[in-house]
């Protein structure tokens, strides 16, 4: 964000705040207004939105586009599922554990990966995603193999509490969790650290010549995005109560990146909107199209890429072309 737009932005902040408030109220009222089926779908949208927002921080703000976010997402989902089946059904505990699992995976591979840039980084994240997918397929004892893990019990909201069975209540839990996590990500984006990330995105060489070490911030944001993805995975399992290696697949990573691009990179809230579009097309529209689902999805991709909302600085994989 450049200083030239600071003044009008400051004046418009109350309007933005009002708009955001209105949206939050609408989101909170959803369970009272819609059927279980719709609430379930919106729950899935929210979980996927958290994945997309985390990826937006990584790709849009820090300029590190990743095709491997399904890996920490899936790891978080499996962590939550395994905890739910064997240890505890308390939702918030699963959430924290899943975020930790996602962050751990990101930490393990990130310190090697973030040394690369641009398309090489993209391909390495793809490689990590595919390798983790293979491991989930093969490690039957833990993951249930290709048949997946079924029978994940419904979550409880606190130790000893009743299992959450109503779609509306689950929606509220997921909404609260997503708002908290997304809020944290937003604060990261708005902080000085976020500014450093944008600086690295726009011109890493210049940042280095100004004395910044670029590796620690890149590594840190990679782990943060991993944590967000893991948390999203636990919320996803809370709704679907089933996880399989397909949740770690390339499609999930690609859909997440698409959600980020549709929404306009760097804005975080845009990624949530993109996530809604992607989930709706894939899950609501596709089953009814008699097999032409991929065609519609492809058309949505193409249309979205052409019709991106204007006003967002284009993300650059490497050197910008002189834009401020």
């Amino acid at each position: 964000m450049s200083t030239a737009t600071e003044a009008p932005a400051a004046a418009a902040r109350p309007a933005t705040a009002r708009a955001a408030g209105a949206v939050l109220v609408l989101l909170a009222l959803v369970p009272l207004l819609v059927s279980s089926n719709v609430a379930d779908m919106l729950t899935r949208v929210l979980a996927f939105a958290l994945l997309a927002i985390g990826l937006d921080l990584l790709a849009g703000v820090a300029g590190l586009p990743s095709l491997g976010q399904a890996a920490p997402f899936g790891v978080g989902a499996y962590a939550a599922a395994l905890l739910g089946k064997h240890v505890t059904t308390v939702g918030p505990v699963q959430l924290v554990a899943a975020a930790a699992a996602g962050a751990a995976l990101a930490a393990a591979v990130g310190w090697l990966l973030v040394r690369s840039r641009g398309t090489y980084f993209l391909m390495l994240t793809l490689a990590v995603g595919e390798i983790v997918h293979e491991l989930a397929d093969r490690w039957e004892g833990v993951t249930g193999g290709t048949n997946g893990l079924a029978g994940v019990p419904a979550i409880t909201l606190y130790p000893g509490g009743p299992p959450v069975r109503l779609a509306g209540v689950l929606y509220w839990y997921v909404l609260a969790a997503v708002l908290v996590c997304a809020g944290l990500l937003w604060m990261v984006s708005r902080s000085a650290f976020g500014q450093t990330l944008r600086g690295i995105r726009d011109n890493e060489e210049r940042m280095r010549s100004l004395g910044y070490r670029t590796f620690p911030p890149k590594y840190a944001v990679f782990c943060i995005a991993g944590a967000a993805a893991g948390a999203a995975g636990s919320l996803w399992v809370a709704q679907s109560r089933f996880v399989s290696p397909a949740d770690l697949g390339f499609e999930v990573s690609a859909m997440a990146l698409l959600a980020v691009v549709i929404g306009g990179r760097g804005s975080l809230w845009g990624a949530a909107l993109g996530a809604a579009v992607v989930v709706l097309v894939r899950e609501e529209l596709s089953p009814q199209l008699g097999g032409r689902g991929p065609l519609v999805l492809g058309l949505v991709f193409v249309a979205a890429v052409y019709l991106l909302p204007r006003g967002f600085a284009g993300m650059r994989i490497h050197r910008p072309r002189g834009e401020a």
Partner: protein
Amino acid sequence: MPAWLSDNLITIVDGVAFGVLLFTIAVGLSLVFGIMDVLNLAHGALYLVGAYVAVRFARGGQAGIGAFLLAGLAAVAVGAAAGAGLAVLTRPLARRGHLDQALLTLGVALIIGDLLSARFGNDVQSVPPPAFLAGSVSLVGHDYPSYRLAVIIAGLALAVLVWLLVERSRAGALVRATVADAPMVRALGVDTGRLVVAVFAFGVVLACLGGVLGAPVLGAYPGLDERVLILGLVVVVLGGLGSVSGAFLGALVIGQVEVLGVSLLPQYASFLVFGTMAVVLLLRPTGMLGRAGKPG
């Protein structure tokens, strides 16, 4: 010859055949990336178009070499049209960065894949090789399909042709100059816009020809496009983005990994391709022959 070698000679030869096939698949991707810095994620779908062209022409048992040549010509025509179209589609996005262009091509890939599925059905289609190549020859006491030997020859011929075009022809010199310094080339009065479209079209033509060449080996079916794309990406990245000789080297490496590697380490077979790529990239971050200053 030592026992290990005679046991594995067929496997090594097959690795070369597979590698050469991978090169024909990947070279177009490498060229397009080299000139435009765009990862054409529709490359696999365009390969599949070529494969279905072969299905269309070589259907029904014993097709002769003539049917294959016809299929090749058709593939060139379709590829040129598709490539030019794709180039035109991605041009307006050049200002918005390479991720946008890559995702656009991914959308196009989905569309092409589904259209192929609607037109040709979802069954696995098999393409018999030209009649005189349909059998097997005996190599060190083992049977080996003659068509795969033909693939080695055809693929190497293609590699030489591409090398000549890129390194030794005037058009190739213009392309290399554009990659290095486009404004200067424009200052010399060359329309770099049309040049880029031409290179893109050429890259897609190579993808379609790869589809015709590979059809008797890999067949044609929904889902093959994704598999081919991933292998092509790995080969190109492994060899170094934008480097055609890198793509050749990368293709031979992956060809051996997929065949000899699987033979020696069967329990790790599913991890070998990506594992190799990851290891190479970690040792040489821009690939084997990638240009060090080009982050990609």
